[in-house]
């Protein structure tokens, strides 16, 4: 009986925060703390439901919750809670709950509190709805709504021009990805209709089970693009991945994420570290059966993920802004997750487990990093690391929790044992999988990407730790430790960042691997991989010892370098970190992305050339229309002069008219 009861509450998971949004939005002003209590209670409710469902499902992963209702036409909305969704729901509601609590204090001085809490509540609702959607359209709808909330929250301090600009940039850049995603959905819809031979009564066209059941047929459809025969499934999955690129800040659509740090730090923690940006990873995981059945798609995912992990790391290492370092770190870690998923072409369903495991752990330690950074910014009033230093003395709790988070991020742990941070248990399997991939296909590029990125990760995060918390203050700030309402969430998160990975390691992956074999869908991943011409091989853990230890070694190397340069200051950075150094300039200018994307592509090509030319065409079309009027008036002005006013001329006209008309008619009659 408990089971049925729980199922019936499932729909409340997104509804509760949504209601909180409405209440806080309209009545928040009249309430203490901007009505924060409603979102907190609602999200707590969501968390409880999610967590209970997850717990129950751990025992019986085949029995998933699936409810569908007709929305419009052949489309539906519904709830699907399978292992994948369950862990995501729990994580999202949990992190969101902690951050909301933290924000009560963090935002306490801001007059826009009601708006803030309303928008974050809406965000949570949308994110939860995204996670538990049972069809691709609801997924997309929620996907867009979280994007909207991201836009609104980045631009929360809209009076700051930079915030308004960053919000716009975030929305537009992710919109590029969204359009690809939408295109994928549209092609998918069109293909499904074709394959199903029209609308079938009783089936919901875009529900995941329906989609998955057509994977072989979709794969068989071929399109000819520039002479290449490409499977429709590949096109669709790549377009989906395009959406994921935008949302999860993968190269080349990662540019918005660092700018998004213009929003309040809590927003960065919630949206741009823990939850929304992982939606892209979640999308790929959710549609993993399609990806694995599509030739070449996972390869693209792996390459782009790996490259992003490295690429973002290089920029993270030169940033001076506390939050920007974290932002690049997020991009880099999301790259890891993508890489993990991409390696599914070799390790199969395990990739989902590895990647989502990293996603969850990342949520904890990255949220923690941001909240710690927020704590520092809240106390000190600046986020430029060059002006910080020695904060550890003033804010010990923050310093400790942040160091824990950093260790987790860098992936410290002892291979072969159960000792290690959360990040260690989820990042290392990815790197190991990359090794297996390399071994299997003699393609070492993903592995090289991942190992290099691991080094950079360690380097930039300890650079941050040392620059911020050690040494002497480099500017005149007055800091103080944050109040308990802020430090308690920090501590909770620190706990999770430290031990969650170690505790759940074995069960977690096994649990997630049940995602595609249950009462909702029952897929044979091996067969699907065959369709995608992917050969699956064994699991991780049997690599040479060096390979197991290598990630730790490079992480230590990174730590050591950071320690030498930023703590002991044995190396003078002056000439190296100057704009005269082309490599530094390239990194500091972030590979000239602003110049290429904003100034050249957007303003130059689209706005300056294409839109300008269209406007010229518009003027021409308009002039043609106007010309009719002008010509008519001109002709009229001339023609009226025929009427000279002299009666003799009138008579002439009459007589000439008679004569000419006779001749004219005669001539025409002759011709005809």
């Amino acid at each position, binding site marked *: 009986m408990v089971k049925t009861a729980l199922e019936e509450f499932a729909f409340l998971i997104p509804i509760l925060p949504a209601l909180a949004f409405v209440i806080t939005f309209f009545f928040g002003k009249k309430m203490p703390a901007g009505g924060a209590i409603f979102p907190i209670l609602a999200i707590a409710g969501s968390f409880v439901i999610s967590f209970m469902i997850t717990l129950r499902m751990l025992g019986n992963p085949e029995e998933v919750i699936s409810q569908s209702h007709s929305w419009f036409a052949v489309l539906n909305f519904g709830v699907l809670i399978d292992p994948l969704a369950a862990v995501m729901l729990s994580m999202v509601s949990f992190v969101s709950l902690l951050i909301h609590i933290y924000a009560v204090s963090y935002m306490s001085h801001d007059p826009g509190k009601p708006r803030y809490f309303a928008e974050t509540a809406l965000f949570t609702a949308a994110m939860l709805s995204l996670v538990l959607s049972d069809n691709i359209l609801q997924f997309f709808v929620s996907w867009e709504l979280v994007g909207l909330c991201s836009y609104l929250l980045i631009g929360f301090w809209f009076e700051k021009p930079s915030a308004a600009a960053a919000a716009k940039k975030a929305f537009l850049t992710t919109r590029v990805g969204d359009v690809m995603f939408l295109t994928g959905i549209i092609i998918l819809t069109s293909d499904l209709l074709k394959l199903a031979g029209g609308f079938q009564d009783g089936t919901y066209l875009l529900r995941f089970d329906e989609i998955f059941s057509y994977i072989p047929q979709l794969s068989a459809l071929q399109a000819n693009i520039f002479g290449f025969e490409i499977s429709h499934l590949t096109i669709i999955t790549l377009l989906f991945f395009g959406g994921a690129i935008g949302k999860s800040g993968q190269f080349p659509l990662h540019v918005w994420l660092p700018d998004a740090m213009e929003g309040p730090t809590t927003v960065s923690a919630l949206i741009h570290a823990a939850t929304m940006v992982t939606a892209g990873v979640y999308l790929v995981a959710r549609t993993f059966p399609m990806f694995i059945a599509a030739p070449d798609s996972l390869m693209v995912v792996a390459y782009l993920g790996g490259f992003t992990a490295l690429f973002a790391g290089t920029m993270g290492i030169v940033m001076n802004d506390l939050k920007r370092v974290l932002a690049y770190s997020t991009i880099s870690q999301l790259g890891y997750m993508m890489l993990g998923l991409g390696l599914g072409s070799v390790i199969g369903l395990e990739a989902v487990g590895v990647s989502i495991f990293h996603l969850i752990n990342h949520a904890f330690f990255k949220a923690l990093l941001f909240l710690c950074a927020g704590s520092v910014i809240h106390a000190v009033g600046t986020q430029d690391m060059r002006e910080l230093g020695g904060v550890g003395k003033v804010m010990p709790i923050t310093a400790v929790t942040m160091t824990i988070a950093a260790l987790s991020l860098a992936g410290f742990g002892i291979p072969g044992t159960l000792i290690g941070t959360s990040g260690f248990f989820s990042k290392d399997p990815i790197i190991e999988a990359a090794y297996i991939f390399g071994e299997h296909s003699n393609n070492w590029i993903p592995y090289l990407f991942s190992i290099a990125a691991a080094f950079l990760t360690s380097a930039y995060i300890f650079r941050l730790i040392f620059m911020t918390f050690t040494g002497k203050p480099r500017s005149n700030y007055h800091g103080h430790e944050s109040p308990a309402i802020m430090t308690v969430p920090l501590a909770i998160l620190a706990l999770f960042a430290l031990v969650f990975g170690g505790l759940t390691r074995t069960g977690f992956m096994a649990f997630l691997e049940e995602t595609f074999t249950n009462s909702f869908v029952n897929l044979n991943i091996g067969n699907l991989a065959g369709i995608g011409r992917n050969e699956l091989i064994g699991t991780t853990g049997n690599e040479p010892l060096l390979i197991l230890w290598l990630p730790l070694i490079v992480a230590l190397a990174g730590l050591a370098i950071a320690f030498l340069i930023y703590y002991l200051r044995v190396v003078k950075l002056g000439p190296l970190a100057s704009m005269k150094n082309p490599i530094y300039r390239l990194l500091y200018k972030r590979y000239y992305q602003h110049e290429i994307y904003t100034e050249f592509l957007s303003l130059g090509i689209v706005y300056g050339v294409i839109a300008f030319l269209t406007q010229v065409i518009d003027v021409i079309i308009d002039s043609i229309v106007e010309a009719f*009027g002008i010509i*008519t*008036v001109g*002709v*009229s*002005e001339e*023609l*009226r002069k*025929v*009427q000279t*006013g002299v*009666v003799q*001329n*009138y*008579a002439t*006209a*009459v*007589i*000439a*008219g*008679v004569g000419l*008309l*006779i001749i*004219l*008619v*005669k001539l*025409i*009659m002759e011709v005809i």
Partner: protein
Amino acid sequence: MESLTMGNLMFLAPEIAVVSTGLIILLIGVFMSPRTKNVLGYLATLGVLTALVLTVESFGTNAALFSGTISIDALSQFFKLVFLAVALIVSLAAIKYNENSDHTEEFYTLVLFATFGMMVVASANDLILLFCAFELASLATYALAGFEKQNARSLEGAMKYFIIGSVSAALMLFGISFVYGATGTTSIPAIAANPAILTGNPIGLVAIVLLIAGFGFKMALVPFHMWAPDTYQGSPSVVSALLAAGSKKMGFVAAFRVFILALAALQPDWQLAFTVLAVVTMTFGNVVAVSQTSVKRMLAYSSLAQAGYIAMAFVVMTPMALTGSIFYTLAHAFMKAGAFIAAAAVVWMVSSGKTDRLDIPDHLDNFKGLGKRMPFAALSMTIFVFALAGIPPTAGFMAKFVLFSSTIQAGMTWLAVIAILNSALSLFYYARLVKYMYFLPPEGQKIRMPFPYAAALLFAVAGVLAMGLWPEPFLQWAMEAAKVLV
């Protein structure tokens, strides 16, 4: 040779009513003082109204009188309805125009005699009668056009009207003489029965074009239209209404009778001639109207354009087209007469005030803010110009609807396209007039509309809307009339 009985005379009751009213007015007017002469206007209105009722009642009768020189049929009765409707509007409006004038009786007698002439033309079944009646309508209106003897414009308009009218009369007579020479008769049915020489010889074309010139003068077809803008502009507005709405239709009915009934054998020739004239006329009228600043002159050019549309019937020559064309004449009578009366109201307003442009009393500038100064005049003028532009639900729309659609039916899409584009072009200047009336600030006081103008406008508006909203009876009559021609 049948004898003239009272029964036969009853067929002519409308004509008799009109002409005798004219004579009575002339007679008693002599003995009245200028102040009491207003009564004459009402008397004339009453006479015209009586004739109108008699005409409507006589619908459906057919008769041939006076040795077959007069034919009473649906066509004649329909056109009499047109002329009498115009005469009614003009008589009503002229009550105000002739207020305190010493020459009321002359005015009304001439109006009524002109109307009588037009009515006879509508019935004429013999070229001699047709020519005489045509001249009657012309002669009476020459004097009317110059009725404001102290007004240089009025006189100039009358003079031009007279010169071109006389030349055209001569041309017509010349043309008739050839027709007579070729057939040996002046009776329309007899001509139709004996077209051999005309069809086989060049003189047929010459005669046709001469006749077209003669009728085209009244119809105001380019290039026989030259007098029209000047005269319409210069004449008193009520007279312009009579000319544009009434006497123009006389040209059409004469042309219907002479070309379609008498010279049917020469259809290819006159069809071609009318094709050229119709297209040139509607285009010229619309284009030149665009740049006019005098409202009456603009209406004159618009009247040219409308003549071009009506003349399309001679080109298309299907029963539907003739129906449309005949329907159009009635619609145009209401619209154009109404529009000129509205202009007359403005001219009156201008001359009774001091703030406006007096040199050209019907200048567009004087229409500024008319919506505030004389709301009813502005509203009815708006209805008239929108009707002229063919915007539903007005008579103009229905008329164009039937006429243009018949062009499509006959497969002359090109002609329909020209006509439609012209119609769209016309909106340009009509809309400008509306703009002046409603969108520009008034430059004078609000003025109470005199009753006669209001009554005349009301009648015209009623006609325009009735024909737009309930065209069925009018269409039936027009169809009957068209049947006479086919």
